[in-house]
């Protein structure tokens, strides 16, 4: 057995024997994917609405019928203006729609409870579109491209992948390298004839393999359970994911050269990577809505580029050439981080 093989084997044995780690590493991505894919959604369903009708006409009747039949709404009935206000205040209704007929023309007003902004915005837009759908004048036909059902899962799958790989690669590699520094086994390797490059690779390769398994798992789940349409985009998605994994591994290596305790490594990778990934990568909050300064800042977050590219490839199903910029940025980042990490690793002496 060569030195390299025996180092890999050592790392694998450690990983496989640590049942809890394996559990966390494999169960966490699946749980997150299913949680975000099914349970947590930004789709708005079951909006409880009440209607205030000043004067019942055929038109209002037809309108109310439409709300009753729309699956997005739970129609709670027609109430008086005072009652509508009371219900909104008590939180028993999410929105009220008021119909007024003046000179034979129907006009309406939407009152929504905006204590939950997402809910209020979406509900208002829904109500608006339902109410306007037969209004006189120019009919507006809207179509949502790429994700006609506006499924949240489409949005979250790339985001979760961006987060998981940072978590597993950066956090686990840095912690495992730093733990060798803490227990002193790193010194044993460094005084041995093993080349530093071999030591580093021996650490990175097992986590790379682990990440590949997770990638396969997530894609399989995404394409089967979450029903993301399988298409020619799979190969580019895999390609860019592998690049991102290498970048995350390089980040882990860099952290491990900076931190001297496992706790520090955990904190650094948690605070420096997890939070920005969740908040600034566009995973949950669109980058375009951020203040200019934060938009600039988000450019240095690898996950931002990765998530954007995966969305383009996976959801829009565009060819790989359309994410050339993202690929170049990620590749550039990988080179810089890797160079820094290796320089730091050597500078130790």
């Amino acid at each position, binding site marked *: *057995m*060569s*030195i390299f093989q*025996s*180092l890999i084997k*050592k790392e694998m*044995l*450690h990983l496989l*024997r*640590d049942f809890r780690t394996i559990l966390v590493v494999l169960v966490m991505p699946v749980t997150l994917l299913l949680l975000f894919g099914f349970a947590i959604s930004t789709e708005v369903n079951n909006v409880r609405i009440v209607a205030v009708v000043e004067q019942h006409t055929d038109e209002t009747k037809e309108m109310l019928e439409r709300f009753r039949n729309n699956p997005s709404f739970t129609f709670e009935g027609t109430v008086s203006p005072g009652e509508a206000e009371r219900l909104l205040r008590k939180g028993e209704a999410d929105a009220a729609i008021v119909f007024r007929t003046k000179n034979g023309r129907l006009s309406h007003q939407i009152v929504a409870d905006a204590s939950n902004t997402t809910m209020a915005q979406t509900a208002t837009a829904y109500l608006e579109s339902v109410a306007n759908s037969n209004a006189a004048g120019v009919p507006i036909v809207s179509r949502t491209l790429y994700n006609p059902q506006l499924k949240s899962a489409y949005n979250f799958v790339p985001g979760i992948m961006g987060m998981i790989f940072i978590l597993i690669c950066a956090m686990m590699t840095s912690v495992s390298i730093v733990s060798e520094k803490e*227990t*002193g*086994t790193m*010194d*044993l*390797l*460094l*005084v*041995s*004839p*093993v080349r530093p490059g071999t030591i580093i690779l021996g650490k990175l390769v097992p986590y790379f393999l682990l990440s590949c398994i997770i990638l396969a798992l997530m894609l399989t789940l995404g394409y089967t359970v979450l029903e993301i349409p399988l298409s020619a985009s799979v190969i580019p998605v895999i390609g860019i994911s592998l690049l991102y994994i290498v970048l995350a591994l390089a980040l882990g290596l860099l952290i491990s050269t900076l931190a001297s305790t496992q706790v520090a490594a955990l904190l650094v990778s948690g605070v420096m990577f997890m939070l920005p990934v969740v908040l600034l990568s566009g995973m949950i909050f669109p980058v375009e809505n951020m203040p200019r300064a934060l938009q600039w800042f988000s450019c240095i977050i690898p996950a931002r580029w990765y998530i954007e590219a995966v969305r383009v490839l996976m959801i829009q199903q565009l060819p790989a050439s359309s994410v050339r910029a993202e690929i170049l940025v990620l590749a550039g980042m990988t080179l810089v981080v890797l160079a820094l990490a290796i320089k730091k690793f050597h500078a130790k*002496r």
Partner: protein
Amino acid sequence: MNKETVLSVKDLTKRFGNFTAVDRITFQVMKGEIFGFLGANGAGKTTAMRMLCGLSYPTSGSGTVAGYDIVRQAEEIKRHIGYMSQRFSLYEGLTVWENLRLFATIYGMPARQIRERSDEVFGALGMKDMRNALVKDIPLGWKQRLAFTAATLHSPDIVFLDEPTGGVDPATRRKFWEMIYKASSEGMTVFVTTHYLDEAEYCNRISIMVDGQIKALDTPAGLKEEYHATTMDEVFRTVARNAKRPG
């Protein structure tokens, strides 16, 4: 002394910024010798030893270990030394045998030789039953013996032991010194740092480091005579009396 020199340093110095951790130390170690490297915590022992092992480069000065230059041939040195760290570091999640095989492989031993040598050692130590036990489950004393075995299985010219007996009981310490004597009698040079002064008596020669410099170097008997002391403890206190660094 007409014995072969395995380690020789001259004016070896290591500075970290303005702080001189090791200040122009000069000494030789002979083949098969047990050389004790004494000093209070912070006196510079570990830094000096790390330079000798190629873990850190000297700021100035020169030296050879196992016949190779410590600045230019650090990689060659690594092939000819063994190293046991302060906390008997081994991979806790691997078994006794897996640890031994890993380190022997790293030092380039062929698989068959590893198996033969480890069988021999396990037999001699009475560790046969522990072969497949995880290192984290075995008692500290065994861990210490295993760490020493892992550091010496490839028969290095010289083995560096960094405070190899910290935290173990006297009986276990004595057993461990028997292992050291055995290795030394087979021609291996042993370079050992310690702050147990009674252990200093077991060494052939000892050096005492104070504030980065070697303040005394002789056989235990010679030192006692020189400092008119009856125990190594007295010798140490006399030598270290003027230490400026907090211990």
